[in-house]
């Protein structure tokens, strides 16, 4: 068993599904489930492809970190697909390509290879978003995604010119041992960061988000906001901890971007009138928060926070988009009273929201406390203050939303939630509560990820 299967199987299945269109949905379902199962049997190792050793050949790194990332992405992917495969049969092969791309992004240890996988998954995403029936938004996404990739590539070219390597660890080693002034690498790093920023929804580079998520359907909403966000987040986390060296003005700029992203995201969500807008703006803030935590070096917590957020977002977008599909629009006034007759779904939604807010009894609370604790222990008093202040704003609009959805006297919206969806959201919500109460494994995992982050060969 090798990690490469995670990339190869979906790719092959994608071709297969083009050939047997009739069973494409089944193939998709089976493959996505298989890759989750497969993860249990793959040993942690570094795989060299094509027989060339690390700095020269391409290698895939499967360490603790990427394993967790793969679990998160594959499970989320499977859940989204399981709910949607019947309806979006035509997209099966694209989804399989996307899965291959996402797995590849997480696994690869080569910066150029990363670019390739990013493009693969990006193209899959562009194709997926055509189902939103908003061509202009898709076009925007396409243009911006391409600009982002180009910037990444540009930065990479500069680095390659300087250090002559494309391998992540090798590059990092070269940079630390070369003795170059920090300013030299700052420019390419910034380019790469911006390139990733486009995909990771960091603030000034993410104008596509409103168009894509604001009109997303049941597939694209959870897929972009949850699965893609998880994958990109993990990759960005790896880059931030492993490769990028941010100091001086660059650090200032990056933290300013992230801080601004957090504050502005919450402020925009505060003023939003549509449910999906609220969710997408809050996910902008959360993405920036995750990046900030990665940047501060609390890798384990950041990874868990990413999982918690994306799991929460999965529930929120699934429920919202199902309701929106059936009701026609997503104004709060249209959706008001949604949960009066759908209590199970409502409770799950509530749990997801309270989890995002970080209220006790939920997974988010544990993570939030630990993150704040870490910040305090490293004497960063500004960030906890910012996080807590925006939490108040976040709380206000989410609670307002929740109450609207729970309370209405008459003229209730009629929405049918099918069994699979209910099952999925309940399970995820139950997990969020479970890890909120039973905190030992969470903290253990966070410690593990921070301490023994990479397996031998992957570690520097």
């Amino acid at each position, binding site marked *: 068993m090798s990690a490469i299967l995670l990339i190869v199987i979906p790719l092959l299945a994608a071709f297969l599904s083009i050939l047997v269109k009739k069973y494409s949905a089944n193939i998709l379902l089976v493959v996505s489930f298989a890759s989750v199962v497969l993860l249990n049997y793959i040993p942690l190792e570094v795989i060299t492809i094509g027989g060339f050793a690390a700095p020269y050949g391409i290698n895939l790194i499967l360490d603790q970190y990427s394993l967790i990332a793969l679990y998160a992405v594959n499970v989320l992917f499977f859940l989204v697909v399981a709910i949607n495969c019947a309806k979006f049969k035509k997209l099966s092969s694209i989804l399989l390509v996307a899965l291959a791309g996402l797995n590849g992004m997480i696994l690869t240890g080569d910066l150029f290879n990363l670019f390739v996988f990013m493009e693969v998954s990006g193209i899959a995403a562009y194709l997926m978003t055509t189902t939103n029936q908003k061509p202009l938004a898709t076009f925007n996404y396409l243009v911006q995604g391409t600009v982002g990739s180009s910037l990444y590539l540009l930065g990479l070219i500069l680095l390659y010119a300087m250090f002559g390597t494309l391998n992540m660890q090798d590059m990092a080693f070269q940079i630390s041992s070369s003795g170059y002034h920090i300013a030299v690498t700052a420019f390419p790093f910034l380019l790469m960061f911006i390139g990733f920023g*486009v995909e990771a929804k960091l*603030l000034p580079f993410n104008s596509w988000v409103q168009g894509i998520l604001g009109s997303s359907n049941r597939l694209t909403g959870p897929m972009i906001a949850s699965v893609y966000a998880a994958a990109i987040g993990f990759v960005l986390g790896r880059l931030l901890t492993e490769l990028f060296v941010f100091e001086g*003005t660059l650090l200032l700029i990056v933290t300013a971007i992230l801080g601004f992203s957090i504050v502005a995201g919450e402020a*925009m969500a*505060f003023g939003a009138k549509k449910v999906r807008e609220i969710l997408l703006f809050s996910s902008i803030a959360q993405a920036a928060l995750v990046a900030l935590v990665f940047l501060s070096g609390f890798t384990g917590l950041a990874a868990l926070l990413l999982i918690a957020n994306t799991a929460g977002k999965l529930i929120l977008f699934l429920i919202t988009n199902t309701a929106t599909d059936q009701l026609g629009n997503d104004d709060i006034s249209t959706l008001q009273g949604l949960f009066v007759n759908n209590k199970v779904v409502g409770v799950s939604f509530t749990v997801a929201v309270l989890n995002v807010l970080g209220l*006790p009894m939920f997974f988010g609370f544990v993570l939030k406390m630990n993150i704040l604790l870490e910040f305090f222990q490293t004497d960063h008093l500004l960030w906890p203050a910012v996080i807590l202040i925006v939490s108040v704003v976040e709380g206000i609009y989410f609670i307002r939303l929740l*109450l609207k959805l729970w*309370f209405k006297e008459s003229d209730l919206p009629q929405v049918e939630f099918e069994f699979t969806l209910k099952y999925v959201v309940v399970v995820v919500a139950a997990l969020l509560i479970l890890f909120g109460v039973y905190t030992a494994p969470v903290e253990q995992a966070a410690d593990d990820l921070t301490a023994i982050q990479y397996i031998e060969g992957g570690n520097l």
Partner: protein
Amino acid sequence: MASIELLLIIALASGFLAYLLGRVNRVYGAIVTIVSSMFVFSSLAYFGFTDSLDTTVSILPYVTFQVTYLGMFFAVMITFIYAMVSFFNPMFIKDYKYPGAYSMLYILSMAGVIGVFFTDNFMVMFFFFEFIVWTSMFLIPLGHSRKAAVSYYAFSAVGSFALLFAIFMMREAAGSFGINAGLAAISGTNAIVVFILLIVSAFAKLGAFPLHTWLPIAHGNAPHPFSPVLSGALVKLGAFVAVMALIKITPNSYVIVALDLPLAQYLVAIFAGLSIVFGTLMAIRQDDAKKLLAYSSMSHGGYILLAFSLGSSIGLSGGFYHIVTHALATGAAFLAIAAVGRQTGTTKMSELGGVIQKMPVTYVVYLIAIISMAGIPPMGGFISKWLIFQAVIDKGLILLAAAVFFGSIGSFLYVFRPLAALFLGQEKPQFKGILKEAPVIMLIPMIVLSGMNLVTGIFPNIFLQFINKVIVELGMAPVVLGTYTIQGTNGILDPLQITIAFGIGVVIAFIIFILLKKSKQVGLMDTYTAGNFIYSEELMHYSVDFYAPIERLYEKHTTHVQDMYKSLENKVKEFGNVVKYFFFTNKPEITVFWILIIIGALLWGDLL
């Protein structure tokens, strides 16, 4: 021996049990709340006062317990209010949209109370603190208004997060989350910051000026039985935080020599005084009886804060005793109003009148409650206010004394208004014949609370002796108590004597009354009307704009604080819109433009 952990688990479990039974029949769930809260209260009180609470933890992770007199004081009092109010639940449960959830959240929030007050760990305390916030937050919208829950959450969140920040700062100083260690370890500039944060938290929870706007909205719109819990019990969490800040932390601030009071404490006292005055003025002009009581809670919260901020043991005991008496009085008053609200369907004074004709017991309960609330002997409120006056005068704080007396006299005004407009006066025709006294199950807690109001007024030493233990625990000298007397700084008080004198006075008056000729009974409508024949009750009932002459003097200045928060909210929205305008367009070139700007910033800063 009773394990606190066991109690906590029983409370949590009975919460879920209440939900399940509530699914079967909503009344069963409500009955579970009675049984559970009575059980928790009685075991806490019994084992607590016999010093046999067990703090060992065997099941729950991370949770550790300690028993302090301070925590026990709060926990017993708050669970008592919970237990009393729970008797109202079966009668109201049918009105709620989500009855099972109501019963569950009611018990869960009570379980949170146990957790907050018996832990020795800040993190656990904060956990339960927030736990109470979100459980109670979902209880409020079961009443009238959804917005109420939002503003409740917003201010609670401000309070909680300020507390959290302070907790982390103390943890940094002490190296652990231990409450005692943390409070002891903090010093220097950090102490000032922590002090401010804790005070902000206390103000937000107590609803003190200027963090009070949630209070009338939440109390006024919560379900009728939950308003007394909010006002009598949960608001007192703020007092708990205030004790930590004002007594246990001594920030190194400038001491005002003339007042013999540190500046920090004095500033808190000033804000407390503002709360008293503002709460009083606002309570005077409310039409909804529940909102009126909510503003009175704000005013009384000011008393409590003021008493704590004076830093003398008599002030401290006054503050603690005021917590007790106000909880009992406001609980009874809210319950009485809740009973009226249930029987008539409204709590607006302009729509009610003459309720006493059909609900005399409720009236008497309310009367006793307001006598206590206004600080008139022989009820508990007098004793606590007397202690606070002693402390204020002892420091010679003229301005604060003016505020305190303003609140005290002003409370006559606002508590009298429901009495006159709602209970007394003409019986409204729409309630004639259909209005009945509240059911017995609702009268039980009201009568018990009234009895407690009397006991706190006649035999305060029972309570003050326990409060003395709390004060000693906090490191202050106890208040000198006789068998029946209380020794203040400038006088002695003998509540029993006053009560006996009052009794004798009433007996004399009664004898005079009974000896004289019997009066002729006439109806309420047979009153002096300057000779006009008036048949409609509305015209003969004075209840709208009751204090119009005095309201006129300040009515233009009542919304400044709300306006401030409203404009803050608008600022946030505007900021969001500005960001949206600049970054979220349908034009990708804008994004490219921003990228260039950022790169330019980098190049301009470092490389060029």
